[in-house]
C-alpha cells in the first residue's frame, strides 16, 4: 500500500511520546534512539517488501519490541519511569506491563502529555515551539532551521537546552490534574498559535514547508480539543482562527507562482470546507465567558471569510475588532493591520495617518510589509515617487525570492510598467 504523506514524521511523535512515558522523561534520548531504530528497520524491510497493511501498527510493534530489549538489558543499570517502577524489574511483570502501556487507550494521551511537557515554564516560547516540532512533529534540527530561516547551530542549541530542561523536570506533565492543566493550557495554546503563525507569516520561501507548519499546528490543536479538559473557549477560538486562515493558503500563490496578497486573492480558491469548519468552531468558542485574543482574531478572519469579494468586506467591523485587539494584545503589527483596515474604509490618507501614529513603529522597520503598506497607500493617492521609495526600502528587507519578486513588480508598477490593482500585507 501507499503510506500516507508524512506518516513517518507523525508516527515519530506518537512513538517518542509513548516511549518517553515508559522510559521516563529523563530517558528522552533513549526513546528517540529506539524510534530511530524502528524507522531504520521499516525503511530496510519496506523497501524490499513494500509497505504493510497497517504501517503505524507495524512501527509501534517494532518500537515496543525494541523497548522490551532495552528494558531487559538495562533495567539494572538504569532507572526508568518512576510510575512503573518495580513492575519493570521482574521478567514476570515486564512483558505484560509493557503490553499494557502500548494499548490504544494508554497511548491516547501521550501526545497531549508531551505537548504540555514541552511548554515548560522555564522555556522561552520559541524553545517550546522548536521542541514540539522536534519531538512531536518529527522535524530534525536542519528542517526546523530551514523552516525558521535560522542557523543549524542556533536551533540545535535551543533544542539541546530545552531537552535538558525537559529531562530535569523528572516527570511528564499530568494531563489529568485539572488545576495544573488549566494553568498551563494557555502556554500550550500560545505555542500552537506561534507555530501556526510561523507557517502562515513566516520567512521561509518554501510554500510546502510553511503549509506543513500550519498543518502540524492544526493537528496538535485537534489533539488538544479532543481531550476532556482541552475543550476550552480559547482552544475552540484558536482552532477556528487556524481553520479560517489556513483556508486562504491555496490562494496565496497564483498559477504563475506569484505571491498574492490578501486583497488580491482569487477567493474561489479559498478552501470552503475549512471556512465552514472554522465558522463552526467559532460558534463553539462563544459558549463560555472567556474572551481571548484568539476569539478576536478568529472573528476578523470570519468577517473576511463571509465577504464574497474585497468590496463586500465590512471594514468598519474589522476596524472595531482590531480596536479590541489593541486593548488586549497591543503590538505594532496589530496596529499596522488596523491602519490598513482604516485605509480600506476611509481612504489611503487616513490609513497613512494611522500608520504614522503607530506607537513603536520603528520596531516594524525591518518588516517588509510595513514599508510595502506605506508604499501602497502612497501609490493609491497618486504619489508614485514616494511609493517607489517605500517599495525599495521594503525590497531591502525582503526575506525570500518570492517577496523580492513581488516587491520588484510593485516598483515596476510605480513606474507605470506594470499595473497591478492592489497589494497588501497578507
Amino acid at each position: 500500500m501507499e503510506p500516507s504523506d508524512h506518516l513517518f514524521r507523525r508516527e515519530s511523535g506518537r512513538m517518542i511520546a509513548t516511549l518517553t512515558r515508559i522510559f521516563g522523561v529523563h530517558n528522552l534520548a533513549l526513546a528517540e534512539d529506539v524510534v530511530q531504530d524502528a524507522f531504520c528497520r521499516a525503511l530496510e524491510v519496506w523497501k524490499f517488501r513494500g509497505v504493510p497493511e497497517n504501517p503505524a501498527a507495524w512501527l509501534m510493534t517494532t518500537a515496543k519490541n525494541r523497548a522490551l530489549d532495552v528494558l531487559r538489558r538495562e533495567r539494572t543499570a538504569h532507572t526508568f519511569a518512576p510510575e512503573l517502577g518495580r513492575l519493570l524489574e521482574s521478567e514476570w511483570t515486564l512483558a505484560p506491563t509493557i503490553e499494557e502501556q502500548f494499548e490504544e487507550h494508554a497511548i491516547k494521551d501521550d501526545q497531549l502529555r508531551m505537548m504540555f511537557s514541552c511548554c515548560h515554564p522555564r522555556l522561552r516560547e520559541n524553545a517550546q515551539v522548536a521542541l514540539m516540532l522536534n519531538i512531536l512533529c518529527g522535524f530534525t534540527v536542519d528542517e526546523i532551521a530551514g523552516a525558521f530561516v535560522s542557523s543549524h547551530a542556533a536551533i540545535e542549541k535551543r533544542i539541546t537546552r530545552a531537552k535538558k530542561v525537559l529531562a530535569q523536570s523528572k516527570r511528564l506533565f499530568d494531563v489529568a490534574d485539572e488545576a495544573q492543566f488549566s494553568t498551563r493550557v494557555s502556554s500550550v495554546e500560545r505555542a500552537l498559535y506561534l507555530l501556526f503563525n510561523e507557517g502562515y507569516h513566516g520567512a521561509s520561501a518554501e510554500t510546502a514547508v510553511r503549509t506543513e507548519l500550519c498543518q502540524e499546528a492544526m493537528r496538535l490543536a485537534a489533539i488538544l480539543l479532543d481531550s476532556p479538559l482541552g475543550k476550552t473557549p480559547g482552544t475552540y477560538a484558536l482552532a477556528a482562527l487556524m481553520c479560517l486562515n489556513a483556508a486562504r493558503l491555496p490562494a496565496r500563490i497564483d498559477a504563475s507562482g506569484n505571491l498574492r496578497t490578501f486583497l488580491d486573492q482569487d477567493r474561489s480558491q479559498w478552501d470552503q470546507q475549512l471556512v465552514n469548519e472554522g465558522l463552526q468552531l467559532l460558534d463553539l468558542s462563544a459558549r463560555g465567558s472567556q474572551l481571548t485574543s484568539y476569539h478576536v482574531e478568529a472573528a476578523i478572519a470570519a468577517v473576511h471569510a463571509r465577504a464574497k469579494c474585497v468590496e463586500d468586506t465590512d471594514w468598519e467591523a474589522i476596524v472595531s475588532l482590531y480596536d479590541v485587539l489593541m486593548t488586549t494584545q497591543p503590538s505594532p503589527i496589530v496596529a499596522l493591520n488596523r491602519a490598513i483596515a482604516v485605509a480600506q474604509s476611509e481612504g489611503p490618507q487616513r490609513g497613512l495617518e494611522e500608520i504614522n501614529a503607530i506607537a513603536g513603529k520603528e520596531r516594524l522597520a525591518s518588516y517588509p510589509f510595513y514599508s510595502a503598506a506605506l508604499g501602497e497607500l502612497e501609490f493609491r493617492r497618486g504619489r508614485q515617487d514616494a511609493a517607489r521609495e517605500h517599495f525599495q526600502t521594503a525590497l531591502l528587507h525582503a526575506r525570500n525570492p518570492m517577496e523580492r519578486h513581488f516587491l520588484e513588480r510593485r516598483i515596476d508598477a510605480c513606474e507605470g510598467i506594470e499595473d497591478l490593482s492592489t497589494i497588501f500585507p497578507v
Partner: protein
Amino acid sequence: MSEFVFLYRGGEAGRSPERMQQMMQKWVAWFKELTEKGHVKNQGHPLERAGKLVKGKEKTIIDGPFVEAKDLVGGYSLIEASDLDQAVQLSKGCPIFENDGAVEVRPVMKLNL
C-alpha cells in the same frame, strides 16, 4: 538473459523521518519499475547490520559489523539483464546513490559455458 547480483552498500538515509519515508518510497517505486520490465528474478532481502565473521583455519569468530558503515552490504537482489552493461544501466536508477551509497553489480557465474 544473464543473472546478476546487486549488492547494496552504504547509503544511510540520516535521521529525518520525512527523508527516510521518501527514500523508502523511492525504493519501492524503483523495484516496481524493474519488476514490471521483467528484470527482477528475486527481489532479495535486507540484511541485519550485526552478525559474526567466522574466519580461517582456526575458525575465529569476530563480531560484526566488519567494515565501515559506508561499505556495509545492507541487502541484495537477483536481477536479470542481457549483459553486464545493461545490468549496470539498471542499477543507476537505484535511490541509494542519493545518499552516497553504492551498488555492486556482480554477474552470477554460468554453469554451462
